[in-house]
């Protein structure tokens, strides 16, 4: 009887350990985290749209051909897009060819979904989207080669794989085409492609 109680006690202590292990492991092993949802939408470095989920499917959904990610609580007043990237072979440059006329903000996450860096149009130089995301060494190298001039903002992150999102406000429907083309002009480029030019 005493041994049974002892084994139950050991089980309880083990349960505590399992509990802690499960909680800490979950961000790495969760199957439906934001990274894998973005992976459903497109290849790395491809800019994909993040659409709000509709409550009654089929009533309004206009475009069925565009890939739609299942992200919850997406603000419909914004046009949201994102891309995944890897810093294994070099930094990634995130930039927009166009300027935006409304508020925009961008975030960099690591693969587990931790928000590492965020910026908005007021914090950016001249309100231009132009980020060079890399590890500490990559940023130092890029600065030595003078690749970070002008309005480009170097962003140091401690991750190998990650993703970014950018949201731009559509406060009036008449502005939607402009905001839309701004988001379309956003590009995520691996550094090798930059060097190839």
């Amino acid at each position: 009887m005493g041994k049974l109680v002892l084994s139950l006690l050991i089980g309880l202590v083990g349960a505590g350990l399992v509990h802690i292990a499960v909680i800490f492991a979950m961000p790495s092993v969760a199957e439906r985290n934001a990274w894998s949802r973005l992976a459903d939408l497109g290849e790395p470095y491809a800019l994909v749209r993040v659409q709000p989920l509709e409550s009654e499917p089929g009533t309004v959904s206009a475009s069925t051909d565009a890939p739609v990610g299942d992200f919850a609580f997406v603000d419909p007043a914004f046009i949201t897009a994102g891309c995944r990237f890897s810093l294994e072979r070099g930094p990634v440059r995130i930039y927009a060819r166009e300027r935006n006329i409304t508020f925009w903000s961008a975030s960099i996450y690591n693969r587990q979904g931790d928000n590492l860096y965020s910026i908005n149009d007021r914090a950016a130089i001249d309100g231009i989207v132009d980020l060079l995301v890399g590890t500490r060494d990559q940023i130092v190298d890029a600065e030595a080669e003078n690749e970070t001039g002008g309005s480009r903002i170097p962003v140091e992150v401690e991750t190998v794989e990650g993703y970014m999102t950018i949201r731009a406000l559509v406060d009036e429907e008449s502005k939607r085409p402009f905001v839309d083309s701004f988001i379309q002009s956003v590009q995520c480029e691996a550094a090798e492609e930059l060097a190839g030019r």
Partner: protein
Amino acid sequence: MRFTILVIIAVATALYLGGWTAAWAVRESSEIGTVSVGAWVANPFAGAPDADPYSKARLAKVGNLTLGIGEGVLFRAEEDDNGQPLRRECSYLIEGTTPPARVFTLVPFTPDGRLVRPPSGQPGWLTSNNLMREEDNSFAIAVGPRARAGNWLATQGEGPLVLTLSLYDTPVSSASGAASLRLPSLVRKGCLDG
């Protein structure tokens, strides 16, 4: 033989209890690290690298894209000021002011994060740039399925409702004193019968 059975009992207890409590904690721990102001609840540290492990685990399961500190803060209301759960068939009045922010949006969602889309032509979400305001810069927004004069946010259907008030580019998101904020009141005005 008896020893083997005891070991199996210990291991089974550890795995079962540990797994169950972890799942339970992730499900029920949504209030850790949150700041609540009236009916509005926010978690300013959600998604940050130094967030608590429970909210990290929950976030990984839900897969939301959290707003960064430089982007804004999302406040969520599931109950009105009297503690009654929000319903899509009821109408509510949101009155007051928000903390300084470049822009804020008010959006109705279902509890699993789907947009409550009203019939076409009706306002399914509001942005602060298009609100009508009182002389003292405060505003009143009617939320509900029936059209109202003034600021109106349309809902439709029946079932639970979650309102999100997202403040973008706001000093609130820097850690200092989110609890001393003033956010608009949220009062139920009546419900459609049936």
